């Protein structure tokens, strides 16, 4: 038996199994900071192995297009991955989700085109999974595209709402189900009737088109602050699409890998929803921040506004400092200045920690990536568990964060964010809030923190303000 024969008589499946084991170890290692790089490497090794052995697959007759496709994607993929700025990472992840979706869709589409006759003979599950990989793959693609455009701000990030939105989505959903049935019926009749075959194709194409529209209408009403949930949910969808494609192709490697990715996406989605105290359904269909007209109790007391120099004096006197970064830090790309200020304060013998909310920014882990880029060590970063330290803190510095420090989440049952776990910054002695202006944040929710006794606002671009802090601190020294 030569190598090729060995592969074809089960060897290929064994090597796929070995690749799957590498993926599993890879993902396991990827969930611990210490081993994460090795995990990524192991899973890349698994991919290399799986792709390598597929090159020997007896179904492959010509290599031209495979090589062309691999070259093109290697060049473009590596180029984008190396050059994309860390601030654009949410868009990048959204796009990757979308690419996963469209490739699953294309494989399913081709399978339908070439093997429509066999599908029903193979069984109902084959038919069902083919329809689902078509639907989920395409919804993931168009939904991710909209998410990426919103994150890039080529589409407005605020929720885009139109009348009868929910009704439209419901109609599209029902239409898809109807088309599933019609396609099935046409496939059954196909052997008797030539027209039925034609109709089966038409119904199937319609499913693709409707799935494309559905992806758009599902994501477009979701506002920027809810993006972490959407990005992780689409991540999960892309995995589900892969698993469904695995059923279609009878390929266990795809099924296992798709399930792993689907599960990891669902776990992340769940973490994000918990961090906002909202259900998934509420995020998907809530149209958060646009439909709800918030009864704004305006001007409860006055806002105290100070200059960066005055703020520097306060920082200079502080022992314990907690920094709370938010989307505003990403917008003004202030992470490097944050690092410089942190280094200065640490060097002065002060204690500096970071309070990073799970949903701060536009995707899960957004702030962590930016701070890591600037060189802030990840053991300075804390989750909500840091909350018991605010009473012992001299200064909390809020940099472009809003909802995650809004006391209304604890105090005002009428607030749309009521119940969301937030940082108790108001318990620290002084709160410095760096903000561009007093405009309510993205979600349009008034923040009572700004009016508190111990809150001082420093208006302006976060990066410039931090530069001002540092310059003033250094001046104090000399």
């Amino acid at each position: 038996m030569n190598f090729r024969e060995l592969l074809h008589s089960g060897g290929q499946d064994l090597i796929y199994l070995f690749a799957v084991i590498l993926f599993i170890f890879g993902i396991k290692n990827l969930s611990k900071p210490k081993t994460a790089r090795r995990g990524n490497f192991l899973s890349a090794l698994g991919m290399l192995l799986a792709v390598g052995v597929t090159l020997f697959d007896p179904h492959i007759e010509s290599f031209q297009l495979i090589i062309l496709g691999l070259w093109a994607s290697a060049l473009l993929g590596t180029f984008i991955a190396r050059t994309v700025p860390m601030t654009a990472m949410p868009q990048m992840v959204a796009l990757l989700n979308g690419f996963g979706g469209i490739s699953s869709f294309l494989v399913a589409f081709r399978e339908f085109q070439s093997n429509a006759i066999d599908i029903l003979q193979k069984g109902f599950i084959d038919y069902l999974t083919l329809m689902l990989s078509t639907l989920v793959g395409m919804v993931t693609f168009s939904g991710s595209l909209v998410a990426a455009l919103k994150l890039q701000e080529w589409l407005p990030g605020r929720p885009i709402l139109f009348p009868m939105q929910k009704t439209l989505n419901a109609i599209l959903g029902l239409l898809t189900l109807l088309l599933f049935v019609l396609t099935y019926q046409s496939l059954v009749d196909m052997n008797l009737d030539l027209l039925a075959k034609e109709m089966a194709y038409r119904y199937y194409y319609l499913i693709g088109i409707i799935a494309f529209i559905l992806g758009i209408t599902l994501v477009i009403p979701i506002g920027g602050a809810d993006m972490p949930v959407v990005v992780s949910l689409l991540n999960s969808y892309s995995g589900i699409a892969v698993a469904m494609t695995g059923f279609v192709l009878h390929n266990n490697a795809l099924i296992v890998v798709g399930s792993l990715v689907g599960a990891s996406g669902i776990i992340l989605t769940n973490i994000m929803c918990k961090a906002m105290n909202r259900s998934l359904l509420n995020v998907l269909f809530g149209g958060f921040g646009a439909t709800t007209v918030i009864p704004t109790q305006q001007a409860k007391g006055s806002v105290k506004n100070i200059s960066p120099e005055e703020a520097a004096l306060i920082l200079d006197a502080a022992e314990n400092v907690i920094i709370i970064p938010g989307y505003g830090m990403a917008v003004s790309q202030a992470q490097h200045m944050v690092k410089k200020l942190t280094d200065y304060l640490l060097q002065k013998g002060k204690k500096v920690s970071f309070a990073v909310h799970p949903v701060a920014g536009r995707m899960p882990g957004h702030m962590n990536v930016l701070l890591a880029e600037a060189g802030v060590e990840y053991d300075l970063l804390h989750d909500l568990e840091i909350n018991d330290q605010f009473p012992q803190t001299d200064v909390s510095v809020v940099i472009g964060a809003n909802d995650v420090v809004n006391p209304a989440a604890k105090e005002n049952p009428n607030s749309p964010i009521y119940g969301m776990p937030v940082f108790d910054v108001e318990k620290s002695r002084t709160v410095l809030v760096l903000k561009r202006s007093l405009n309510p944040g993205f979600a349009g929710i008034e923040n009572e923190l700004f009016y508190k006794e111990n809150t001082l606002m420093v208006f302006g671009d976060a990066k410039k303000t931090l530069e001002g802090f540092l310059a003033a601190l250094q001046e104090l020294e000399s």
Partner: protein
Amino acid sequence: MQESSELIMTIYVFVLAIFTGFELISKVPPTLHTPLMSGSNAISGITLLGAMIIAGNASSLLSAEGLLGFLAVFFAGLNVFGGYVVTDRMLRMFKKKEDPKDK
């Protein structure tokens, strides 16, 4: 009978893999949320295996099958290459305090 037992096995694999996934990733520190997503995106580029078979059945980009096959390989490949490289780039940046400050 043969057919249906094969199907049952496939469903077994599916269900067990989902449980494995939940077990593996149940506790991810927030620091790794983004790399986990981009890394799992790279892994879901495994559709490349199916895409390669499609592309391997056509020889010209000008035919419908050829174009489909090429695009399927291309997009899955973007996931694989883009996903792994960007994940590694991010992970290289994550440093602990006691780590040496080399780049």
